[in-house]
């Protein structure tokens, strides 16, 4: 169903939501924007360009998360320490990434209760991108600026209003009482969406990338492209689809904790015997790219990258994944 909301009416709506849930929205802090819980609807800064630096995946998989507290020899889980939340203003790329991560955390023989409960308790009100940025490439990886997968509500900005495409029961609970959008407004919103996607250039062709990367596994491609990579963790930490974590006991605080980890660090795969299956930067860069564009595809038939562009913007050496994929597709072994 489609609802209509004026921009001026949004703060009032947020206030209503705040009666029942914690509302997270992008909030400007100094020079950049970050998702924070709102104390006041006026704090929400929905017109952030590019993306937030820190990905909103942190609201579901915190960078440091206490899993258990040790009390009298027993480990007590923190999985229920989660309350009702609304995340407003998240973009499609980040929403789609959460959905891809559901495939890791919720599927198979074991479900991750920390992830599951946060997902259950959260309603995602997505703000699609009418004006995608230069570094965004969601349309190259099977997504788009108004990709609705995973959204409870998708907001499309037309003039001074939002058309709200309400897609789930959770979304309904937040938007039900609003007036329906007119047919004309819905049509305009569709035009906005089509125009946004059409504006975007495709920096690479993703068709066949999985097989191409597999064929390059032992080639000279990887030693060549990894030369400028510094082996820091920026791309993996800012990435909305990266999920590797480490589990550590913080005995002094009686906590069992999980922290984001990264395959870009040498010690990630270091074994107690001293053997390291990925001893040099070459293997690690290869692992990162292949995990996103080959292994993930093998497992889930989806590219494990949503084109958010954070790694492109913040890599200190401008090692650009768009350029890497394009080069891989074109690589001919001599």
């Amino acid at each position, binding site marked *: 169903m489609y609802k209509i909301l004026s921009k001026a009416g949004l703060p009032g709506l947020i206030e209503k939501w705040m009666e029942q849930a914690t509302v997270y929205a992008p909030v400007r802090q100094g020079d950049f924007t970050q998702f924070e819980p709102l104390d006041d609807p006026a704090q929400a800064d929905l017109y952030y360009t590019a993306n937030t630096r820190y990905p909103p995946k942190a609201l579901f998989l915190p960078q440091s998360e206490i899993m258990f507290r040790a009390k009298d020899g027993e480990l007590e889980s923190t999985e229920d320490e989660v309350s009702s939340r609304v995340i407003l203003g998240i973009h499609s790329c980040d929403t789609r990434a959460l959905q891809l991560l559901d495939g890791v955390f919720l599927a198979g023989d*074991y479900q991750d209760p920390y992830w599951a409960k946060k997902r259950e308790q959260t309603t995602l009100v997505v703000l699609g991108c009418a004006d995608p940025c230069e570094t965004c490439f969601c349309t190259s990886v099977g997504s788009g600026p108004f990709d609705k997968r995973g959204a409870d509500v998708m907001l499309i900005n037309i003039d001074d209003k939002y058309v709200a495409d309400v897609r789930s029961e959770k979304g309904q609970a937040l938007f039900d009482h609003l007036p329906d959008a007119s047919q004309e407004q819905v049509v305009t919103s569709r035009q906005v969406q089509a125009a946004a996607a059409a504006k975007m250039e495709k920096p690479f062709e993703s068709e066949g990338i999985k097989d191409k990367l597999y064929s390059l596994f032992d080639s000279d491609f990887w030693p060549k492209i990894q030369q400028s990579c510094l082996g820091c963790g920026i791309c993996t930490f800012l990435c909305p689809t990266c999920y590797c974590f*480490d*589990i550590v*006991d913080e005995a002094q605080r009686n906590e069992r904790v999980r922290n984001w*980890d990264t395959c870009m660090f040498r010690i990630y795969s*270091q074994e107690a015997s001293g053997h390291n*299956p*990925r001893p040099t930067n070459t293997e690690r860069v290869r692992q990162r790219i292949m995990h996103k564009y080959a292994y993930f595809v093998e497992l889930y038939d989806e590219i494990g990258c949503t084109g958010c562009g954070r790694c492109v913007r913040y890599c200190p050496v401008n090692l650009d994944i768009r350029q890497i994929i394009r080069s891989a597709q074109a690589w001919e072994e001599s």
Partner: protein
Amino acid sequence: MHNPYKPIPMRIARTVVETDDQSLKSFELTFERKADQEKFFSKYRPGQFCQLSIFSKGEAPFGVASAAWEGDFVRFTINKIGVFTRAIHEMKPGDTIGMRGPLGNWYPIEDWKGSNIVIIGGGYAFTTLFTLAQHLLAPEIRSQYGDLTVIYGAREPGLFLYKKVIETWYERKDINFYQTIDNPREGWGHLVGYVPTVTKEIAPAAENAVAFVCGPPVMIRFTLPVLNELCFPPERIYTSLEKRMKCGIGKCGRCNVGPKYICKDGPVFTFAELRELPSDL
């Protein structure tokens, strides 16, 4: 909702020093809660592993080294090599320890009923092969399979695990058991030679047979060609892999190799499957 990261409480019932140099010790753990015990044994199969947990020291994965019929306990044989294993070695009967499991896949012997089973193990990696052999020796199971051949190599006589039990295998008619050490030693009554060489001499027949091989990488590297020569196809040779693990349930990414997680899609793989995996293993 079941929390797969939460360990269940286990109590150390018995410890056995396995090797003469004290580096390997077996721990037999019993369940504090009957419900946990029932749940465990309803799922457990030879080849699986568990994560043992000591709060403040962390967790580590260990293959289960006992067959279900051996009793209401779960045995782990642990090599003292780091902070965590050193801490376990200092524990005594009566102490409690956390456990998560059984995890991973298992030796799929159900698929090979009627076949001859060849088990080849070297060094500390024998733990889950011991489990497999013990499982097969249960009377109601044994009759479902053909010949059972076990080749077990260690560097020296003192480094064999489960000495008391494996001694009894010589007296049995339902198992062809061969022990071998690297170099001759006075008083040693069994075979001498590296496992690959001994395997070649014993030459177990590949017809209607399936092999399970575990050991240090160098042993595997030289045993595989022997099995090849004996005409064992790679789909009928199984092994159990080890890799650095953290969550043990296929979430944290640590043990990933290509599209697989060793903890979830393994640790048991055929050599045919291994060939498909990328080489950063």
